[in-house]
């Protein structure tokens, strides 16, 4: 039986690439901050430069994301209204509170990395204080979408988990990539000492990254499962999203952003010490780039794919 439903509403997307970029940049910023705090904790000032890179990237990324999203607003200059009117039910309102807070915190934290201080108790404590804030902001990026009951694609638990895993992977990736580029521009691969030692030390990071990527893969799978075998509207939401941004999600988000980096990682491990140092650095750079690319496109795909509304299930 054929059923045709026509319901002409305002055409989307209501939230476009600018919001996806905000989610991506904000997430990467959160990740960068956490990365900086983690390195500082773990190596006690051994890798100041990369920490500094990470610390500065955090406010920069979060800030530019915020700017973008402001530009997307119909009336950006009215944003202050969020601070004179309280709506704790709205994740967006919380975002409006926490994101600028984190931005300020991250900026102060970055400032604390000025000069050559191997150890700074104030910085360490500020970093520790910022961790929960950063996690909240990271989670917010997922909550923002997941609370919207109207959009079944977003209205799931994995949305939040994926956003949080996303900030972890893209945070690390952006820091590593920027740091490599920075060092390259400065004519040194790693001033922190012999690159091999640096990379050895970074193994923990690599392990985290691999774990995150694997977890993300698992999360996406769960996400897909819950929609594919969920209620009718969930199945339809998945079908619609697949139509709109399926290729973007599967090829760029999963293929380029998760599978390829994992494969490259595996190759790097297999190559081991036999490989040329430069090659390894190149692989790291490439891997990070792919993770970032994937990190952006999975968000864009989810953002766009989730907005096109579902069939109006007229149940009467």
């Amino acid at each position, binding site marked *: 039986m054929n059923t045709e439903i026509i319901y*002409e509403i305002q055409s989307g997307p209501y939230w476009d690439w600018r919001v996806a970029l905000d989610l991506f940049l904000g997430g990467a910023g959160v990740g960068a901050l956490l990365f900086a705090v983690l390195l500082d904790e773990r190596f006690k000032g051994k890798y100041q430069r990369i920490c500094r890179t990470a610390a500065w990237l955090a406010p920069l990324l979060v800030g530019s994301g915020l700017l973008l999203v402001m530009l997307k607003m119909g009336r950006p200059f009215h944003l202050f209204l969020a601070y004179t009117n309280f709506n704790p039910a709205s994740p967006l309102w919380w975002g409006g509170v926490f994101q600028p807070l984190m931005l300020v915190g991250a900026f102060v934290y970055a400032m604390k990395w000025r000069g050559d201080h191997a150890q700074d108790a104030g910085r360490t404590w500020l970093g520790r204080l910022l961790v929960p804030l950063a996690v909240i902001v990271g989670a917010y990026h997922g909550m923002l979408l997941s609370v919207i009951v109207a959009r079944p694609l977003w209205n799931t638990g994995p949305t939040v988990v994926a956003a949080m895993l996303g900030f972890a992977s893209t945070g690390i990736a952006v820091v590593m990539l920027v740091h490599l580029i920075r060092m390259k521009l400065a004519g040194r691969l790693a001033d922190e000492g012999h690159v091999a030692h640096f990379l050895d030390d970074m193994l923990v990071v690599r392990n985290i990254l691999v774990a995150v990527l694997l977890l993300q893969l698992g999360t996406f799978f769960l996400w897909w499962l819950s929609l594919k075998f969920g209620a009718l509207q969930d199945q339809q939401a998945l079908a619609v999203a697949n139509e709109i941004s399926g290729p973007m999600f599967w090829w760029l988000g999963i293929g380029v952003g998760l599978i390829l980096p994992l494969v490259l990682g595996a190759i790097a491990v297999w190559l081991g010490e036999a490989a040329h140092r430069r090659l390894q650095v190149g692989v790291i750079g490439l891997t990070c780039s792919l993770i970032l690319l994937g990190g952006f496109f999975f968000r864009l795909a989810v953002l766009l794919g989730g907005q096109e509304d579902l069939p109006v299930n007229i149940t009467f």
Partner: protein
Amino acid sequence: MTTSTKNPIWESVNRSSTRRTFLKAAGGTGLLAAFGGGPLLNFMAVAATTDSKNAVAGKWVASTCQGCTTWCPVQVHIRDGRAISVRGNPHSKANHGKICPRPHLALQQVYDPDRIKVPMKRTNPKKGRNEDPKFVPISWDEAMGMIADKMMELRTNDETHKFVLFRGRYSYMRDIIYSAVPKIFGSPNGISHSAICAEAEKFGPYYTEGFWDYRDYDLENARYVLCWGADPLSSNRQVPHAISVWGKVQDQAQIAVVDPRLSATAAKANEWLPVLPGEDGALAVAMAHVILTEGLWSRDFVGDFTEGQNLFVPGATVDELVFEENRTNGVVRWWNLELKDRTPEWAAEQCGIPAEQIRRVAIGFAKAAPRAISWLSPGACMQARGGYAAMATHALNGLVGSTDHLGGVLQKTKVPADSIPDYAAYQDEMAEHNSHQKKIDQRGTLAFPALKSGKSGGGVVTNNAADAMLNKDPYEIKVAIAYWANFAFSCSGTDRWEEALTKLPFFAHITTHASEMSHFADVVLPAAHHMFEKWSFVKSKQNLYGYASLTERVVQPMWDVRQDETEIPWMLAEKLAEKGFDNLHKYFKEQFPDPETGKTPTNSEEFALAAVKKFTRSHWDATHGDYGKYGDKLNGWADYVDKGVWNSHRFKAGGVRGKFKTATGKFEFYSETLKKALAGHAEKHATTVDEVLKATNYTARGELAFIPHFEPALRWGDEKEYPLIFFEHRSRLNREGRSANCSWYQAHKNADPGDENWDDVLKMNPVDATKLGLKNGEVVKVTSPIGSITVNLKLWEGVRPGTVAKCYGQGHWAYGHVAALDYQKRIPRGGNNNVILPPEYDRLSGSTARHGGVARVKIEKA
């Protein structure tokens, strides 16, 4: 279950190819896509100041909507001198304060920036569709001077009959411009639009019960409503009343709709009979067959067999003497000549409706009778040879005795009005002589009997005027004025009109918008909008009430416009007088004193008002002989203006029975009335009735000509080359083809079942699309034997396989920047059906066969 394709989110324009089971996101796009900036903010500041609570609260004033021919009394809300809202007139008993969507759209007509602001004249002497007329604004004085000069030339040459006045829509002020002007000037040629409207519909009731008019319907008491192409929830007749009672009708009656398209009414009916276009007659005679064989005719109305036993047995002839007829004439002859072999099985083959359904509906209808309505509409009879389908469908009301019965089909109450004062004294010899010349539409010729009210040539053959003008037969037309008409758009075979208008030496067009017809004009005169800027009155009926409703000048016109039927004739008369011919002016001055003051009108506006008062005096002037006799007693002119409507007494069924104005005084299944009319026409041309039928392209011969009978559909085009049957339908938003320039029309077009917003789609059943390899949303070229249009394809289950349907009203290449996709390049939005519909006729009524699937088409990817 889904038919989803791709997602429209990336598509910027409404006319996307997507037809999915999903929300179709649209709007905010297409033509109305807004562009940043603009002066709106300034206006919002202004608006804010006028919004203060001190602003005048506004008032409701009466007028009439002429968006369809229901002609509903309405009220317009006026605030700060602007019309801002419309509602039904609560004083009206006919529409009881309800209106359909149309009157709302009128706001966008009156304030349409594309209206003509001033008179304009053509500066490019070359005429043609592809010529830019290069219109420039001129004064009213210059414009009237140009027309008067051309008319005076005709007088100089004693060829005043070569003047024609074309009339489209009208009010009851019509006789001033339509009769007095040509007749006093000296021309027989008042050519109305009636024959492209619904004359074939009137043919049915006239030749059965002697009533040349639309009927009224007692919906509230009906137990069965059988609609023949009628779509009262969406288009004429009595739309607001039908809408308002439909829920109740559904509760207490069965509803069956005969229509090849799932119409708005079919969507709210119990039975849909998607008849093959043009085969309504087959269906109707089969239903009559069932009613007789099942013994379900009205004994009271029709009579009975003297022995009581039903001898109407399929295939068997009945002796006329064994049936005693009551209020009808010739039921047995009808049976013997036509019905006995018209079994549902035969009809099923012919019209595509299963025999079982035909039987079910016929029995249901007859069992519910006499509280049953067989509702005939143009769809079922404005077809080639459609006059007989009109008779057959209406005859069902006679068969079951539902005509003039409670819950049935009714005639009308009298709505008194004074007619135009006699003008014979103002006709000089030339006028007297020339106004008796033959009319330009060739009415009454052998091939165009146009048997209105029983008279050969009694009716108009509107669409034939184009051919007659081109052939200069009976003579050449040199000067034409058209008002409220757009025949180059609204008549089938538009190319003939374009050619005729191109060759017409002088043409003046009175119109609100520069339409297709204006494009060929030498002078275009801006008309007042009927609902907001014009004084006139109309007569109509619905809900068993007759009424007269005023159209009033409720706002001061924004532009330099004049009232078409009164002011412009006055100004023309003044100009003609200036040039030496003052009979018309004298007539207007002497015969139209203001009934209230007795003063002679001194200018066009005074004349317009005086004329309305004069014609309607019986409604409001206690000194008039008819005052209060037939309905309301309005307390003077001011009271009439305030209330806006005069209501008749309610129609009481039963008074017409036994007093039918037919040759026999009975309801005629064997129409002696038609026999007389046909004989008269044959005699006039010294030939036989059979020869008339041959010349007019009917298949019947002999006695069949006088009874409702089946005539096969006539179609242009060979089935092999043109595999699909094209048919058209009306829109619930059409203001008679004049609302396509309203953004509200476009933005709500999908309120017509199957249609799309901002589009003019061709609807095709998916089965046919699969055969032709066509997809939903594709641009297709629709070609008939006479022309082609290019439109978007819409696959829809609500249209009969083998046929394709498109709504009438769009495809304007002029009219404005919304109606036309590109006004300057003359590119239409959608396609005009009349480009592909051939100029075919139901010649006995003179009607244009715009329905009945008269054109076969082929459809290709464009």
